[in-house]
């Protein structure tokens, strides 16, 4: 009985430790808005670098920052806005965020409900509006969007979602009438949902990426290589919908 228990514990330990192979794991904390981009970049990078396992942790940027500040062992931080590097506490380690792309907000709505003209006129009374929570980059950008377009949300039902993908799904599922998402998210929309092509420069965010581990060890080197790979792909097709960094 004891021996079986011990064998079980060893088995679990081995599974967690990756069965003792020599793969280097790089933990990349990336914003929800980068889900598709980074998933594709992960696959391509791992195909080119068989000894490296990129492990993505995808969530709202402010959640990721809190996790890092609470001691999560992230090698790479890729939030939706460079502003999130402020307030990052890493016990004295210096991080140099590298800007590589920019993004801005877009308004989406269901195609066949004729809401586009109403929303363009700023009339949102009685509608369900999905936005990111304040504090997440897309939430702060949503505040700027509402202000710069003069949208009146006083008679709308406004739901604050934890990240941009939750906003997207609320509109995709037909439960929210209007959503504020990134222009890059429009790529993954279904045909039922349309973008209004608003030009709101005030909502521009600069994306930046940074290596959090000190260079020198294998994980640090692999992390730096992945960051260089992301930056080199920034003007490629995988970043369709993003703009160049300012």
């Amino acid at each position, binding site marked *: 009985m004891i021996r079986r228990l011990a064998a079980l514990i060893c088995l679990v330990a081995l599974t967690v430790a990756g069965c003792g192979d020599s793969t280097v794991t790089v933990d990349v904390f990336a914003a929800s808005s980068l889900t598709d981009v980074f998933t594709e970049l992960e696959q391509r990078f791992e195909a080119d670098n068989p000894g490296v396992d990129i492990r993505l942790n995808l969530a709202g940027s402010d959640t990721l920052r809190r996790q890092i500040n609470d001691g999560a062992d992230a090698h790479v931080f890729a939030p939706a806005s460079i502003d999130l590097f402020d307030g990052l506490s890493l016990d004295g380690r210096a991080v140099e965020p590298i800007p590589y792309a920019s993004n801005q907000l877009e308004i989406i709505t269901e195609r066949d409900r004729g809401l586009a003209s109403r929303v363009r006129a700023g009339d949102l009374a009685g509608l369900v509006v999905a936005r990111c929570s304040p504090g997440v980059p897309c939430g702060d950008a949503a505040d700027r969007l509402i202000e710069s377009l003069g949208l009146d949300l006083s008679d709308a*039902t*406004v739901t604050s979602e*934890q990240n941009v993908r939750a906003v997207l799904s*609320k509109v995709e*599922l037909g*439960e*929210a009438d209007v959503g504020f998402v990134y222009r890059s998210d429009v790529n993954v929309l279904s045909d039922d949902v349309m973008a209004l092509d608003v030009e709101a420069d005030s909502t521009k965010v600069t994306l930046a990426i940074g290596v959090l581990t000190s260079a020198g060890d294998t994980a640090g080197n692999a992390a730096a290589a992945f960051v260089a790979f992301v930056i080199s792909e920034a003007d490629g097709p995988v970043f369709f919908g993003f703009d160049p960094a300012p």
Partner: protein
Amino acid sequence: MGQCSSGSILRHDGRLVKRRTTTSRPAPGLPTSIIVIAVIAIALLVLPLVGLLIQAPWSSLFSLLGNEATLTAIRVSAVVSLAAAALSILIGVPLAFLLARVEFPGKSIIRTIVTVPLVLPPVVTGVALIYGFGRSGLLGKVLGFGLPFTTVGAVVAATVVAMPFLVLSVEGALRSVDPRFDQMAASLGAGPLHRWWHVSLPMIRPSILAGAVLAWARALGEFGATITFAGNVPGVTRTLPLEVSTAINSDPDRAVALSLLMLAVSLAVLIGLRDSWVPRR
């Protein structure tokens, strides 16, 4: 239901009774290694709570809890959890009777479906609710409106997740009730509804109450199904757990204060359960 707190057991009829303990010393022959593992289990449960208490902004606790957003969330939570508990009693008790007293084809499937929300991730329950009661869901298409982003939607999400606690508690109690009381009442000429209301129901009142309290506590803590199905609308569907999740990144002190509030309520429920249902001797 198993043990609720050390020294007392939640019986299947919903009563919490003091466990008869013969000695406070470890039972003879229990190996030290087992005790060590048990202590690890206790640490697993206790350490996070101690961390929360140490982290708590005690000096500013009341000003943090007096904040308008907090008070709004407390109000929404009170309304949603009490309504969910009431709805659970209203429809859950008849369901428990159906499961305990009536034989019908497919009963085992129905019983499984009743217990599914206990094990299903609440987020999945929330997604399922969207396809059922959302604007473009099964019922929503027929009705022409959906429940998401309404307080009713939050109540429905909480009820689906919480009601199984009540149904299982009541059904278990019904199984231990002697059916001859019902037969006797019938022989004295009482009609079915009269018997149900005046004979069957009073006999299981304690387990209905215990089940309702458990369902209420579960509804109060509900997060995943609510945020997925009912959204996070301040004053409408943003309950205390959603307020904690919204505040944790931007205002951690307030999140911790809110967590303490919820911890205090949970403890009050457990202590209340023990004190109200222990027969006074």
